[in-house]
């Protein structure tokens, strides 16, 4: 009953015209920010923060959150069309999204990204509304051993992301893990692999690596082929641009998978939307009947990660609003915003300011509808981008990548890193090394190393802490299962061959 009356009051707050307007401004800005590679929600929200001091706090919170989840919608656009990840959580979307675009199914990919985002985004808000307080308690029971197990589970996905050669996938993953160790070690303040560069003390930005490997690598590779004036196929007619009923059917599981994985990962302060998108992609592939088609442009490979990174937003707001604990860069800035508006974020926030919480929840339902309505009509518009001839398209990708990286840090060093990783991406493509395992290693490596060292410091060096706790034991078991998938597959094939030869 509390929830119903709370939500009722929430809609009374969110449906006030001025709040509707700010909600729209937020999700619109969010979409734009998401589309622009590099510029992400944390920087945008921080820059707009001073403007919100004149606004009512509920309106301001509605707008800033709109930017947060709106950016997750926009992030997929450049991933799909140009292989340039719009933000770190959309890196996985490149894998199948860009391949779909190359097959002339850019519209379907963009459409399903918007639909998956809508469904999962709404599920995320439902979760925030219904189970926030108990879930926040559950999240607190997650300690370093559990995070370690989660990262191991994620890293086990490498066997699913491997292309033809498992050896090459593992090598690529090791390079990713190595890059993750670069910079200053948190535990000892020792510099690792900085090669005397001051800029390397912070390590290498994940977005720089991803844009270099995916976008520039692709451009370099295509420059070589010189198939002049080859234009990617774009079907005519609105109907052919949107996902079909069959597509929707193929994505049924991806919607559920993305929603749940994203939300749960979001609630954990030590994980984030990038990890959520990788794990949901891995799960999608693990349970799929057409596993071998992943990476060639398969629609559920877009729906799962795009869903996950949207429902992550609802999840990430759980510890922020129920405990005052920020789990990501964006929620940390929202926390600072709440403080500046005179709230005291903490365990009592919802109880003492129900209008803020319920107004925000209600506005997120409305905002997600707005985003769907805003994004679906844009699909045909964006899909036209691929009609550009390659001699315009590739320089465009090049330019967007450079601008994207430079706006984040304003550093020329990062640009030279971008070029270096572009060349690495080119070489990997030439030598048939898959890029996804490397990026996976880079995303998870840092968090995994940290969790392992924290665990061992807690247990004074006793490895049993990793397997002696129920949640981590279950996750490590799952990881083992995932690792055995290809072995079972091979055994099965051998068995079938044996049966055949006997007959």
């Amino acid at each position, binding site marked *: 009953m509390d929830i119903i009356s709370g939500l009722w009051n929430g809609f009374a707050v969110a449906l006030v015209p001025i709040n509707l307007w700010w909600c729209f401004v937020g999700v619109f800005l969010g979409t734009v920010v998401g589309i622009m590679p590099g510029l992400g929600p944390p920087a945008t929200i921080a820059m707009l923060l001073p403007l919100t001091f004149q606004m009512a706090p509920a309106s301001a919170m509605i707008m800033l959150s709109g930017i947060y989840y709106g950016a997750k919608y926009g992030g997929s656009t450049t991933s799909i069309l140009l292989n340039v990840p719009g933000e770190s959580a959309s890196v996985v979307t490149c894998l199948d999204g860009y391949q779909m675009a190359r097959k002339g199914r850019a519209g379907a990919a963009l459409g399903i990204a918007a639909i998956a985002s809508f469904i999962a985004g709404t599920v995320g808000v439902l979760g925030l509304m219904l189970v926030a307080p108990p879930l926040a308690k559950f999240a607190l029971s997650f300690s370093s051993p559990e995070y370690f197990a989660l990262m191991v589970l994620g890293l086990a996905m490498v066997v699913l992301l491997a292309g033809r050669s498992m050896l090459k996938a593992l090598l690529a993953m090791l390079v990713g893990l190595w890059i993750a160790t670069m910079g200053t070690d*948190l535990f000892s303040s020792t510099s690792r692999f900085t090669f005397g560069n*001051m800029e390397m003390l912070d390590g290498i930005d994940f977005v720089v690596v991803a844009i270099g490997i995916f976008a520039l690598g692709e451009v370099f590779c295509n420059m070589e082929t010189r198939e002049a004036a080859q234009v990617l196929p774009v079907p005519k007619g609105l109907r052919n641009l949107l996902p079909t009923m069959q597509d929707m059917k193929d994505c049924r599981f991806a919607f559920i998978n993305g929603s749940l994985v994203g939300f749960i990962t979001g609630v954990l302060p030590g994980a984030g939307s990038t990890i959520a998108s990788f794990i949901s992609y891995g799960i999608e592939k693990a349970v799929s009947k057409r596993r071998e088609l992943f990476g060639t442009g398969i629609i559920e490979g877009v729906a799962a990660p795009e869903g996950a990174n949207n429902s992550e937003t609802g999840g990430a707001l759980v510890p922020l609003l129920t405990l005052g604990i920020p789990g990501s860069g964006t929620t940390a800035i929202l926390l600072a915003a709440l403080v500046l508006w005179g709230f005291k974020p903490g365990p009592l926030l919802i109880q003492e300011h129900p209008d803020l919480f319920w107004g925000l929840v209600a506005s997120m339902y409305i905002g997600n509808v707005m985003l769907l309505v805003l994004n679906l009509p844009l699909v045909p518009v964006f899909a036209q981008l691929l009609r550009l001839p390659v001699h315009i398209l590739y320089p465009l990708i090049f330019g967007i990548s450079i601008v994207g990286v430079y*706006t984040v840090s304003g550093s020329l060093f990062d640009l030279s890193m971008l070029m270096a990783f572009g060349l690495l991406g080119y070489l990997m493509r030439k030598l048939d090394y898959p890029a996804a395992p490397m990026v996976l290693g880079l995303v998870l490596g840092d968090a995994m190393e940290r969790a392992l060292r924290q665990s061992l410091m807690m247990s004074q060096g006793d490895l049993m802490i990793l397997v002696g706790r129920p949640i981590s034991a279950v996750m490590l078991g799952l990881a083992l299962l995932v690792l055995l998938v290809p072995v079972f597959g091979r055994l099965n094939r051998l068995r079938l061959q044996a049966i055949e030869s006997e007959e």
Partner: protein
Amino acid sequence: MRSSVMILAAGIAGIFASSGLLAADGWKPTRPIEVVVHTGPGGGSDTLARAVASMIEKEKLLPVRMQVVNKTGGNGSVAAAYLAEKKGEVHTIGFFTGVWLVNPLVAAEAKVTLHELTTVARLVLEPAVIAVKADSPFKTMKDFIDEAKKAPGTLKQSGGSITSRDNVVRQLLQKSTGAQWAYISFPGGGERISALLGGHVNMMVIEPQEAGEHIRAGSMRLLAQVASKRLPSFPNVPLLKEAGFDIPVVPQVRGVVAPPGIPKENLDYWENLFRKFVQTAAWKKYLEDNQFEDGYQNSADLLKFVDAYSVQMTGILKDAGVKVVR
């Protein structure tokens, strides 16, 4: 696109600034002031710099605008190096924190120490409090220390990097009492608090503002304060010294520096500006709202502080087993 808007805004501000407000003696700024911070938008230094800029603007203490520029990377050393490169530049200042002091001590790559820049003013000292979970068996700081002596290495503290103030407080306490407990580093403040509230660690050094709500909600309890005098919001919590642990209060500092080799009139101008600024009611309210201590020092005093602090930190870090390179 963003930077072009900024340049345009800066240009307009510059035109307005140069059109009239040039009078009086000594040096006066004629262009917008570039304010360098080492964190991205929303980070600690960035938030402080933007708040100070808007307060200075509101109080009309400066005839030109202040433009915050984020030079992130290298744990602060990119911003410090940027200032060092701007040798003699009169329209640039930067906001430093303790990281600018400690980073060159432990990272050979970070070549610019605060000593090589021009110190302008120390503004803020951030106090801290020592917190445990509400249902913790430790009622006083002494309880915790006694237990840590009885079973060395079993108690745990969550905190930031090994060079952070959290660990410095632990090192000093361990050295003066002979007790020992583990220090678990977490990169984010959220994770540190989660570890404490989840019962995975026993204690943490936390900013008073962060702790405030958890105390009010009954999920956290304080053992002691790391401050030079009791904070108004926690009148009943003893200082470490009052609790029987007379260790030096290690401050978390924030302040202003300028590029090296600036003319004397330029430095005088900045010193004057911040001397006037720290007396404004707006700044006093800001300190109070954030539970900061007024840490004002002028250029010469700050320079002395920097040297003393470096020596003190070198000793503490060496005790902590950190490799000190300078």
